[in-house]
């Protein structure tokens, strides 16, 4: 390559990289980034976006799959830098993100603070789901126990934590949960054990009341409970590395019962990954925890107003009902804001209250504590 060719090629590359920002500058397309699984991406592309564009002619939504939470974090870091230099972050909405990140983002005003003023339907949101005003909970999911009805009669299925532990011990090797950091189904099972040893009172745990001492005091008995259970699990204490792998073991008939996410298990059943003979049960003394997916909107995005319109649209009865029917989730709004027939049909799967466990520093304490105390002590290999 001679010098002239090199210069020509170089300027072509430079021009190409400048193109997207030029094209976006005068475009009214809402840029949505998601780090969620494929079922959620499909739900947006097939349901939410067409309905929103139909209801709001002239507005466009572009959904980009950022892969996972790390992908979103990288974009959020860039947006925070753009906020400081007053540039366009080229992103408007994150489909599911923790507004506590990136560090200093909230203080710098990176995220829009939601209220009834900018999102008229804000008042419909389930109070229990609101964590901080920079996040908009629009769909939820909860952890249930899925079991094989051919091996366990539904009327013998455990309904309380005590019955569950008794069942696991009576049927060694028939239960497995995934590592708490690798997927929420195992993670919330572990959190249920923590609730159990702390008087089944979810209100004892908040983001603000975390301290190393309190964590030590409240978590240690849970490790004893889980360690006591370990020898009766599959392979005398093996843990799968994700939600999907647990479902896989259940579908291969290796184990009889696993904790699962409600949306994933309903989808697995409708796709035939799990047979019709799969039973679902929720503990009645205190349900396994659930979690909400929370939308965030950039305050410095080029299409902030359109993005807030999209956020409001997600809280309509139509979209919230679709969350239930299409992805087996549960609504971010209170139950009196979804269609009555749905309320009746799904009353077994979705209880009125879903215990949640705070994130923040608790996550690290629980994950590290579990790995160090519960997962170790396997003399195998």
């Amino acid at each position, binding site marked *: 390559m001679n010098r002239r060719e090199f210069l020509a090629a170089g300027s072509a590359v430079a021009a190409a990289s400048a193109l997207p920002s030029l094209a976006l500058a005068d475009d009214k397309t809402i840029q949505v980034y998601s780090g969620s699984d494929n079922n959620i991406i499909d739900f947006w592309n097939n349901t939410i976006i067409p309905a929103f564009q139909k209801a709001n002619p002239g507005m466009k939504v572009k959904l980009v799959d950022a892969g996972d939470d*790390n992908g979103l974090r990288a974009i959020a870091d860039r947006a925070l830098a753009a906020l400081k230099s007053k540039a366009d972050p080229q992103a408007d909405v994150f489909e599911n993100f923790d507004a506590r990140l990136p560090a200093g983002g909230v203080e710098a005003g990176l995220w829009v603070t939601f209220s009834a003023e900018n999102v008229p339907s804000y008042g419909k949101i389930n109070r229990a789901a609101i964590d901080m005003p920079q996040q908009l909970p629009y769909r939820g999911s909860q952890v249930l126990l899925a079991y094989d009805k051919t091996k366990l009669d539904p009327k013998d299925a455990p309904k309380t934590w005590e019955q569950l532990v008794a069942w696991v011990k009576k049927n060694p090797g028939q239960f497995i949960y995934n*590592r708490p*950091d690798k997927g929420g189904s195992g993670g919330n099972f572990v959190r249920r054990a923590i609730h159990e040893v702390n008087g089944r009172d979810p209100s004892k745990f908040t983001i603000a009341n975390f301290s190393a001492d309190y964590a030590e005091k409240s978590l240690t008995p849970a490790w004893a409970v889980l360690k006591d259970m370990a020898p009766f699990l599959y*392979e005398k204490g*093996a*843990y*799968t*590395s*994700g939600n999907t*792998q647990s479902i*896989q*073991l259940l579908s*291969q*008939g*290796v184990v009889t019962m696993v904790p699962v996410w409600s949306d994933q298990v309903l989808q697995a059943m409708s796709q035939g990954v799990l047979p019709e003979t799969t039973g679902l049960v929720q503990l009645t003394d205190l349900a396994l925890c659930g979690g909400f997916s929370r939308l965030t909107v950039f305050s410095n995005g080029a299409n902030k107003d359109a993005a807030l319109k999209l956020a409001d649209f997600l809280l309509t009865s139509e979209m919230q009902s679709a969350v239930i029917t299409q992805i087996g989730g549960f609504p971010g709004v209170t139950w009196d804001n979804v269609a009555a027939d749905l309320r009746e049909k799904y009353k077994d799967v979705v209880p009125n209250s879903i215990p949640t466990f705070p994130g923040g520093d608790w*996550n*690290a304490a629980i*994950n*590290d504590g579990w*790995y*160090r105390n519960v*997962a*170790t002590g*396997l003399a*195998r*290999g």
Partner: protein
Amino acid sequence: MADTATASATGGSEPAIGRGLKGLLLVALPVFLVGWLIIYPIIAAIVSTLFVEATDGVQFSTASYRFFFSDPYSRANLALTLWTTGVCAVLLLLVGLPIALYLRFSTSRFADLVQSLAIFPMFVPSIILSYALIRTIGPNGTVDILLNAVGLPKIPSPYLTPWGPVIGLVWDNLPLTVLMLTAGLAGISNSAVEAARDVGAGPIRVFWHIILPRMGNSILVTISFTVLGIFSSFTLPYVLGPASPEMMGPFMLRTFNDLYDPLNAKTQAVISFVFCLFFGIFYVWSIARNQRSQSR
């Protein structure tokens, strides 16, 4: 015309200094990239783990390293990583060497088929391999179903035990091993083998006295190469391995991402790097030795 004739006759058209400069320019970009993307992050990681921010400014501290080596949990993870790497290296040689020998000395058409089968794993992404292995040798998988069909007991499943990643990693690294060993075997002349046979050497003697001494170097290169890859492997131990102890790859990611603890994650990375550096030096040394012996 006369000028070009002399130039081509001497074999070079430019003075030596100009050529040297061109050569430097050619390597400048890769050297710059290595410096920027590899050397600089390494130095930055080492410095930032040793000079930690304390209440009264930045201080020199080896606390994170002392924590790693005094923490039985971290030590168990390092031990498992070394164990997995060692077992994989031995198994790869045991499996790869016979295949490479066969490919080198066989002249049948069947050898082509064996070669393409041996190379095949190179084109299978490890995440797909992981799930496929759960389906086949996992509990109630294909192997169990076949065994059950002929009335045999199930195999003890390696899934979620340290043997799960070992099987996956051996399968995944086999193509590279076979290719490098075959390349090493190509340097052994047929005449040397035939001469040994003529004086009555059996296959084992030929292998021990003729082939092995000549391919020692390529075995060293193969081992150091695969060991580097296995030591830092991530996907297979993540999906197939046990929750604890875990290999350094998943351990580092978990420390960084789940525990929000960049300092300890970097410490783990530096420690992994030191072990890999050892194998890297080994590799460079054997290459250099090889070049010296060839230039002699």
